[in-house]
């Protein structure tokens, strides 16, 4: 149950460099009136970042684009997307996603 000195140092440093990007834009940008184009740009960030994360999760394995290794995940994404569109339920989407991948891994 010990904490080694160099690990503590790494955790402290890592926590500071994680905290700053999380906090600074909130504190600074909310104080100033952003120009219209910035607001419209920021408006697209949520869709862009989620899509990028999904792209990585679905199409990449071990840091490389690999459709063959990920074909079960890609197939499982179809009912998952369908559930999200039809039910608009986040929990339902997660559950259908998990069930789809279990079934597909069992069958294929």
């Amino acid at each position: 149950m010990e904490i080694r000195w160099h690990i503590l140092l790494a955790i402290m440093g890592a926590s500071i460099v994680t905290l700053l990007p999380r906090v600074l834009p909130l504190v600074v940008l909310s104080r100033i009136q952003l120009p219209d184009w910035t607001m419209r740009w920021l408006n697209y960030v949520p869709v862009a970042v989620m899509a990028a994360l999904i792209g990585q999760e679905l199409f990449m394995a071990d840091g490389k684009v690999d459709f063959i290794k990920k074909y079960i995940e890609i197939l499982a994404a179809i009912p998952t997307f369908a559930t999200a569109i039809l039910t608009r339920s986040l929990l339902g989407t997660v559950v259908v996603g998990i069930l789809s991948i279990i079934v597909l891994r069992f069958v294929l």
Partner: protein
Amino acid sequence: MSENVQLNKHEIDVGEESFLQGVKDCIPTLLGYLSIGFAAGVVGKTSGLSIMEITLMSSMIYAGSAQFIMAGMIASQGSVTAIILTVFIVNLRHLLLSAAISPYFRQLSSFKMTLIGSLLTDETFGVAINKAMNQKSISEKWMHGLNITAYLNWIIATLAGAFFGQWITNPEKFGLDFALTGMFIGLLVLQMISRKIIIKDLVVAVSAVLIVLGTSTFLSGSMAVIAATVAAATIGMVVEKWK
């Protein structure tokens, strides 16, 4: 007079979202991070970290990909400087999330803003920005409820991974590895449906996927996400100008 009435109405609108509602709205995302947190705990333990070190890491850093990479670098005797620099790059993405959510918290003090920002993650961002559609601001209490639930879930998950990881040989058997993808899909779709600018959003989403895959040949995974987000959001703005 009429202005006063409007102000009051606005305050009530925001006040409605309680801490408890934030806790409830976090529930759908718990499973996704439970499995990732569990995995992070297992990886931490197999990298030779003590339970205390893993707990400290989860509570101080609170970022999945960074913790995975950190555990790996510690196992391979990476230097403290290299570890900190890598974590910085991996978590730079939060700049964009924090910036995108800032317009909804104008009413708060810097201290309160720091509390909210320090627990911002992909998932709490996704849930909050969905909530913020058609609203001018996000309730502070609601955001704390969401944030703190996600945070505790993460710490518990990594601890469970560190304790029980040795007996779970194959988490993929339970499909839990796909919970996170499912959650991102849900968050993306719900957002696009509520925004009602489907075509522009589709252009942005498809661009983001193509760019993240394209840039991953020469950028690290986290830098590719940042590049894709910046470029795709810019494409969205340009498409908007055309119409």
